[in-house]
């Protein structure tokens, strides 16, 4: 008789979970375990346990709100099944219309950053100034100090990780592991096949 009562009302972990839920709803960017435990005045280990409870509760297929681990913290987002409805109401201006040059520049900065515009230009073989300015404006990269020569260095922002759904930069695949598909070679070979011998 008193067993369910104890589970519902007197489980302090559940209360902590509710507190975390509230903090995550109020936050506009991912909160780290350290931030959550400071705000909830609880130790990190218990916060992580409570987050485990919440992850189970807020998951795809079970809730319209999904708890995800992203950009070095925890954050709520809309469930994927609600994406169409969200798309009718909201835009995703940060990543809309990113050019190939912008994606390459992002890749350079994500993998090799912090790095400067001359470094990016050297790798890509083209000037990077306007592309870099555009990425800064979108909030995907930000200044991160200067080189010895005085050139500004850039790094990717937590927003970049969030937009790309990355838990952190360390989950990027290793460059060496990336597919060896050589786009130009592929297309040349396709053309060669098309040609009558």
């Amino acid at each position, binding site marked *: 008789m008193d067993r369910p009562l104890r589970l519902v009302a007197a489980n302090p972990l559940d209360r902590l979970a509710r507190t975390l839920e509230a903090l995550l709803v109020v*936050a*506009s*960017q991912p909160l780290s375990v350290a931030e959550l435990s400071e705000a909830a005045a609880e130790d990190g280990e218990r916060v992580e346990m409570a987050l485990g409870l919440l992850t189970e509760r807020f998951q795809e297929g079970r809730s319209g709100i999904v708890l*995800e681990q992203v950009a070095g913290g925890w*954050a*709520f*987002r*809309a469930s*994927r099944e*609600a*994406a169409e409805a*969200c*798309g009718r109401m*909201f835009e*995703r201006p*940060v*990543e809309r219309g*990113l*050019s*190939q*040059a912008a*994606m*390459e520049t*992002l*890749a*350079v900065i*994500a*993998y090799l950053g912090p790095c400067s515009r001359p470094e990016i*230009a*050297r*790798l*890509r*073989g*083209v*000037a990077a100034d306007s592309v870099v300015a555009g990425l*800064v404006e979108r*909030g995907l990269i*930000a200044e991160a100090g200067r080189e010895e020569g005085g050139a500004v260095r850039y790094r990717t922002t*937590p*927003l970049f990780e*969030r*937009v*790309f*759904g*990355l838990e952190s930069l360390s989950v*990027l*695949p290793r*460059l*060496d592991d*990336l*597919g060896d*598909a*050589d*786009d*130009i070679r592929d*297309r*040349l070979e396709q*053309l060669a096949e*098309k*040609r009558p011998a």
Partner: protein
Amino acid sequence: MAMPVRELELDLEAFEGPFDLLLALVLRDELDLGEVDVAGIVLAFLERLAEREELDLDACGEFLVLVAALLELKARALLTGEETDLEDLDPAEAAAELARRLADYRRIKEAAAWLVDRLDEESDRYFRLGPAPLAPKVERQLAPQDPAELATVIRALTAEPPAVSLAHLELRFPPVEQFLGRFRSLLARRTRFDFDTEVHQLTRVEQAVAFLALLELRKAGEIELSQAAPFAPIRVQRNAETKTERNPSWTARSA
């Protein structure tokens, strides 16, 4: 029919138009060759070539020469302005360096492709966006305040202010008649007097009223006024005909 290489239509990121215009712009330094994707030009040419039945050797030859020249220009452009002057390297070393860089770039291109795929997969994740990361953090600048002190200050503000005194605005003018009588009795004894001497002991307001009385007497024709120069003492002289003229008119009016 020969394929016009120079009229090859290009649709590159840095340039859109016929091949010969691109060449002209590059040679005139109006287009940075560093921004031109030469592989894109080669692909465009090969695609055009593939559309044809037979191989146009003339066109291929011309194209090879032009593209080789472009590649050399671009390689030079890419290798200049470096800390280690690669132009001084022997051709084999320079080629190795260029190949290394191309390999680096290819990996970056693959990373970019991975990011594009990732973005595509994640495009159905909607989340709340906070202020831009570059926006300055709002910091509370106020020092902590003591509520009791705040109450005291506010209480001081709500206290009824003392009534404003208008005393200084009230000017007490003595009646003009007082001076009319005084000047008339003076003139009954003397035919003339000096205005300044008569009033210099009085207050400023009294002096003003005395002057009004003087003007009043002048208007009634009882006196004549004279002054040697501006700001010189005003001399007041009894008008000889005053008595005779004034009294009949007064009698007539009151009759």
